[in-house]
């Protein structure tokens, strides 16, 4: 149980897909202009990630290594389409505002990366918790980004006016440069926290290594 909890917590800060592994940034930048979009995209990706990881981990011994990529894609694409259709039917406003980024979850590096690096080699339960941890790690970052961007860039939160009417919205935060700025500040904060967690976890042993991705290969981003 402790092991599963560790796997889950791992995705939140220590091995956060956006801040540490640094994959899947483009969709994160693009959709975080409003908090509603951030929550929607985060949950949508978490759903696809968890389902794909579980299915792939379940069938990992039945997937020939030479054709694993197309099989991963078939699985991911199926879940993405299921999620896309469900959103169109029941959350049309959200689906409209996220536009092309929902179908693009198919090629989101986080899903592909976790399936290839983790789920295809680990038991089902581990994969389930890894998917949940990574998905929620992604979601909280999106919410944190969009919170600042919507508040400062539009003066609203979840579409409701929260800033006084004398406040003039700083459009800069809605535009991509503002997004990168906010991203880097959150990243600095998260990395500070990560250092403390790692220091407390083990004084001396193993140190800074990621569970599945060695820090030296972090450069391999998409």
């Amino acid at each position, binding site marked *: 149980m402790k092991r599963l909890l560790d796997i889950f917590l791992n995705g939140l800060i220590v091995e956060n897909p956006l801040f540490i592994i640094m994959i899947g940034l483009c969709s994160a930048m693009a959709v975080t202009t409003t908090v509603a979009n951030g929550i929607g995209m985060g949950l949508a990706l978490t759903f696809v990630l968890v389902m794909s990881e579980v299915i792939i981990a379940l069938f990992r011994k039945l997937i*020939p290594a030479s054709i694993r990529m197309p099989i991963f894609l*078939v*699985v991911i694409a199926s879940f993405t389409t299921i999620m896309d259709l469900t959103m169109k*039917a029941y959350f049309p406003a959200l689906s409209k505002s996220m536009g092309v980024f929902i179908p693009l979850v198919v090629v989101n590096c986080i899903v592909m990366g976790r399936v290839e690096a983790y789920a295809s080699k680990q038991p089902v339960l581990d994969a389930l918790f890894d998917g949940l941890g990574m998905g929620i790690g992604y979601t909280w970052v999106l919410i944190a980004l969009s919170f600042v961007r919507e508040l400062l860039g539009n003066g609203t939160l979840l579409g409701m006016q929260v800033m006084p009417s004398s406040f003039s919205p700083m459009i800069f935060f*809605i535009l991509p440069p503002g997004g990168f700025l906010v991203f880097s500040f959150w990243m600095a904060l998260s990395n500070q926290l990560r250092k403390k967690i790692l220091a407390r976890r083990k004084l001396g042993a193993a140190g800074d290594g990621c569970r599945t991705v060695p820090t030296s290969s972090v450069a391999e981003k998409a």
Partner: protein
Amino acid sequence: MKTWQMIKLGLILAIYTIVGCVGLAFVYNSTSKTIAARQASDLQSALREVFPNATSFTPADNVKSSSSAVTFQSAYTAQGPSGLLGMAVQVEGSSYGGATVLLVGVSTNGTITGVKVMENKDTPGLGANAANPSYYVDKATKTTFPGQFTGKKVTDPFVVKKDVIPITSATITSRSIASLVQFTGKAIMTALGSGSSSQTPVPAVPPTTAERPAAKPVTSTVKGVDILETTVTTSGANVISATAKAKAPSYDGFATVQVTVSADGTITNAQVLEITDSQGLPVLAPDFAQQFIGKKTSAALTVGSDITAVTGATFSSRGTAQLIKATADALFMALSGGGL
């Protein structure tokens, strides 16, 4: 052995794909009705907004888009208590952040009865205000950006910052929507006006003349200009004019024009058939191409001096003007060379 291995892998992949497809089929079946119902009710409420007095809407199919950059998704004629009220068209065109879908309603007398932004992917806080019901371009009268089109004539100029109030910091969105409304309005008027008239005006040809394809291909010396087809008009044995369709890259897309040049080197007809530039739509207005009619092919025909660019589409105007000039030159050269 190797073939057998490949077949085996293919079969495995097929099994995964089949399972995935069957799963999707179930999800599709259970959601497609909800999705269709939602889209239909969205459209119905938008139609009601555009024609509040209409008693019924009938699908129509006689509105044709003359540009490949603009798609008319559906068209409806609005029937009122006392007959035909007008027509509404759901149109898809491009704006700053991608495709934009509008519903444009035009009454039988050529007045825009309403514009509704159905889908827009422009920058939130800027261009997306086009679809924001509480964003007013005129705070005093509480007029939204699409709301200001209501009551305009389709023959109005639709120039942003002149007769169209733009959204602050979203000039491109404002321009794209304004020209899309104008384009759609004009197409609706054509459809309403003469029922099934074709959009391409046929050049006036005296009855004693005949038309035939050119005897030899015409090519342009200008790089990138592709002359697609050439026809010549003959009177007896004499070739009196030649017409060519030509295509060339413009600002960020392609422009297609049709040019007719008489044997003495005068442009007798010019028309922009198609433009795929992202902001090039205004160039399709006949007023632009008509500036060339009557000019000699030997004239410079440059935008700024003897040709006036369409406001908001300077680069597309330039590209199109160069293409018309190149086509006219090529035609005149071929005409004077003889043997067409």
